[in-house]
């Protein structure tokens, strides 16, 4: 816009470059814990007096993430202006299977997301807690790997936007359900979940025909006749 133009006229290219680099740095610091970044915080902590050229700075930030790091900065909430970082590169087995450390929370999260997906979108919390109990994870007790499980699931995973934890209307006593959060929708591959699910049950992924269609919306209504091999 003309306002941005006027703003740009007053700062040097190097200054814009420098601000963009600071924004990249800030977002990467916040991403250490996978907490989404809010525009308001970005402006307050980094952009400061440069807010009138915000669009130009963000254009360069997106470019840097994409070209230097292979990452994509996605605005998951266009009203509140909240951003998360997503990997643009496909995981490559030969490069990732070596020693590199693994976060056990990913396993727990996978279990919860899988149950929600297999139950087609929403699951009462009771079912999640019961499933976890069968896996020796009791939300009422301190777990030696996960610590406070209830907090991890209903607070950390929710703040990271992997899960939504919402009250079911008109329930007495109060009942809550879990759904996929926006980060999960962007980061997690449904065909891959179904593929792993098939391995666990020694079954073809297609045998869960509805979930298979959910995972492959491009296949359209007829459903599970196409081979799944090409999917990643």
């Amino acid at each position, binding site marked *: 816009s003309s306002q941005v133009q006027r703003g740009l006229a007053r700062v040097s290219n190097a200054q814009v*470059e420098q601000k963009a*680099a*600071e924004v*990249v*740095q*800030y977002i990467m*610091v*916040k991403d*250490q*814990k996978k907490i989404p970044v809010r525009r308001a915080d970005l402006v307050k*902590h*980094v952009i400061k007096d440069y807010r009138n050229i915000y669009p130009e700075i963000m254009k360069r930030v997106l470019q*840097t993430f994409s*070209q*230097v*790091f292979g990452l994509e900065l996605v605005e998951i909430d266009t009203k509140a202006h909240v951003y998360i970082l997503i990997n643009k590169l496909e995981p*490559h087995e*030969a*490069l*990732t299977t*070596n*020693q*590199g*450390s693994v976060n056990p929370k990913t396993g727990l999260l996978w279990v919860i997301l899988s149950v929600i997906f297999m139950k087609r979108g929403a699951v009462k919390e009771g079912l999640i807690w019961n499933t976890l109990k069968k896996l020796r994870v009791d939300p009422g007790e301190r777990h030696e790997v996960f610590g406070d499980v209830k907090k991890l699931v209903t607070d950390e995973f929710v703040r990271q936007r992997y899960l939504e934890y919402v009250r079911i209307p008109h329930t007495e006593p109060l009942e809550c359900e879990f759904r996929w959060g926006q980060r999960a929708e962007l980061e997690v591959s449904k065909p891959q979940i179904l593929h792993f699910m098939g391995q666990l049950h020694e079954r073809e992924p297609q045998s869960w025909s509805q979930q298979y269609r959910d995972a492959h919306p491009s296949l359209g209504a007829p459903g599970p006749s196409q081979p799944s091999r090409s999917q990643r």
Partner: protein
Amino acid sequence: MMSNSLVDEREASTLYKHCCDIHKVPCVPDKLDDFIDTINAKLQLMFMQIRKGMSEVNGRQYYALVNMAETDITRMSSDYADNELELFRKTMDLIVSSENGKISSTDALNIADSLMTKRLKKSEAEQVLNRLVQDKWLNEKRGEFSLSTKCIIEMEPYIRRMYEDQVKLCHICHNIAFQSQICDSPTCGIKIHNPCVARYFKGRVEPRCPACDEFWPHEIPEVPRSISRR
């Protein structure tokens, strides 16, 4: 590089080859460092760098992606609390001022009592130290802590600046030296990394200090197998 905090030369070459394959360009094996320079030209704008350094344990070369800036933004980092960072900093103080680059776990745990920010219980300090080992900032071997390769690569400019009068360079490879041997001669006192000692004295009948020519009184370690293979 971001998910693996440290990669050795072989892994770095594999990554380089993988990048060449993806972009269908010919891969020239000895151009790895040129390739890294090209990446660094981009990373430098974001105050990051891929840097090379030697492991003080096995003498092999490693690459690490490191941060170069110390700003209000970098201090927002969320991995460790203030008192945990103070514990780390004071552990580093002790390691740097030690003669052989190691301190006992007892000494490390005793720091917990002298924290200015917020005191840690012994058991909490133990957990923090374990995490620092897990996150590859410290090495732990037989109850002794030393600085990890990744830590030395990233912290080198800081260490040189903050511990200017304590830190010594290796007489052979000229990098900062912690786990090393020292010449006994009071007028000399040069340091040599253990792996550099092994390489330098290999095959010499009577070991003598390369600086003052006095007899080298320490036991000469064996050349680690991974180096002798080349």
